[in-house]
């Protein structure tokens, strides 16, 4: 599942690059025909996608990529800075939608009893999240939003035992990073997704029983 997502993102990205290349390289065929054809889309230069580094740069042999890769995050990683209020200043906030939305079709809210957009999203400023008292929580402060309900988990996260830490356990020797809630959990469907396990050990010749036999017993 993750691989599919990654490939679609990659194709989407390369598609954008391809369009940009065509727009910049292809010479427009003369004034009159250019006027009749649809005007070319403005070329937006985007920086190469970067993720905040996780762990030590010397550990290239270890796969430390955070487990979550979503469309929205990828857009941010690609350098998009989008303003939600560009659209949402026209669209009023609703507590509940019965029909699927026109936009955000990829969002499925599978978050237990927490099934209303405005439980987390701010009703008037969609670039921010909402706190208990209706005040805004900045996007970068998402941990505080999750802590509203998941207090015990937040406490453990602060102590460094929920969510992976990378780098140095001894902060006197070097710095360490800690993954934040949405680097692992999709906030709309926070249950950890199933994964393909890596290859199992094979049957060692010295063991007494072949593994299939052992498996058949239970």
């Amino acid at each position, binding site marked *: 599942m993750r691989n599919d997502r990654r490939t679609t993102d990659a194709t989407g990205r390369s598609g954008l690059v391809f369009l940009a290349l065509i727009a910049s390289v292809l010479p427009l065929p003369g004034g009159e025909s250019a006027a009749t054809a649809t005007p070319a889309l403005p070329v937006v230069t985007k920086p190469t996608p970067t993720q905040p580094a996780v762990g030590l740069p010397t550990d290239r042999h270890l796969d430390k990529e955070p487990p979550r890769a979503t469309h929205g995050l990828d857009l941010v990683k690609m350098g998009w800075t989008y303003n939600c209020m560009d659209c949402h200043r026209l669209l009023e906030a609703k507590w509940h939608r019965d029909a699927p939305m026109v936009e955000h079709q990829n969002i499925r809210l599978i978050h237990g009893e927490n099934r209303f957009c405005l439980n987390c999203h701010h009703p008037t400023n969609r670039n921010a999240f909402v706190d208990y008292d209706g005040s805004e929580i900045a996007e970068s402060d998402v941990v505080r939003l999750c802590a509203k309900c998941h207090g015990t988990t937040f406490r453990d996260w602060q102590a460094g035992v929920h969510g992976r830490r990378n780098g140095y356990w001894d902060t006197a020797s070097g710095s360490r990073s800690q993954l934040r809630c949405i680097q692992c959990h999709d906030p709309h469907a926070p249950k950890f997704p199933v994964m393909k396990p890596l290859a*199992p050990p094979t049957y060692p010749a010295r063991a007494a029983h072949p593994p299939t036999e052992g498996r058949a017993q239970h």
Partner: protein
Amino acid sequence: MNPVEPADGDSRTVEQACSPLTRRTFLKGSAASAVGLAAMAAALRPLLALEKENLTLDALLQRHYRELTPDQLGRILDRLEGECERTYGVHPEIRDIRPRDGTEFAYALNLGRCIGCRKCAHACLRENNQSRDSDEDINMSYIRVLELEKGGIDLETSDHYYDPGTVPRPGKYYMPVQCQQCREAPCTKVCPVRATWKEPDGVVVVDYNWCIGCRYCMAACPYDARRFNYSKPKLAAKHINPDQGYLSNRIRPKGVVEKCTFCLHRTREGKYPACLEVCPTGARVFGNIRDPDSEINYILQNKRVYVLKEDVGTRPRFYYFFDK
């Protein structure tokens, strides 16, 4: 023969005066030493054969790690680096990293979070230079991930060969098992040559050059934490991690036992072990148990931890717990 008193003005020493070197004694002595040399050459002949098998005389006469002077150890590290470069084509940096003062390691694993993806078992090989036939081969990994039925901890029906399309499977949970770095380690007690021992920071290590390969320790270990090099380690140059420690992840010779060392070449420098670095669910917690503010102490104080096979009295440094 009566002792001869040297006369006054005689420049000879007492020994020279007492045993004058005659032609007869000279011939006798040289014949005896010729016989001795021949005998010694014959006795040393097997060593020449050993040299061909990549075991040098230096390696054979090497002393136990804990008896080495810094000078000797430095020469050994240079020799091992050279051997690795000649055999595997990669020049490693092999260091001797000593335990830190005021440090005792402990590990905790949250079984409620582990999903059995085996990333830790594979990262272990990437880090620790174990022998492998292919990228998929993790038979020498220090970590076995057991799949167990929910509702109990029945190791006898556990399965570490599970390979479903996706994990976690319904009704199952997963328990990675590696060296528990026991405080009462049975493996160190049975070693006939004391090639394995417990370091001050709690890590049980092996001097791979002192190990005779009898595998008593493997039989004594209740956790199947040790691996034996039945053949010379097979490692492609691109798979070799050049950051190596004498007591941890340097490439082992044939015929010795190896084990998890909590990645001591990393952890003694303050880094996290490799298995923790890659865990996608953050199920692993590692730290210094002597530091009251460490993550591991938070676990021990706030979570209900248990140790594996408590009844065998090994007092592990590896704790398991179930949590959200």
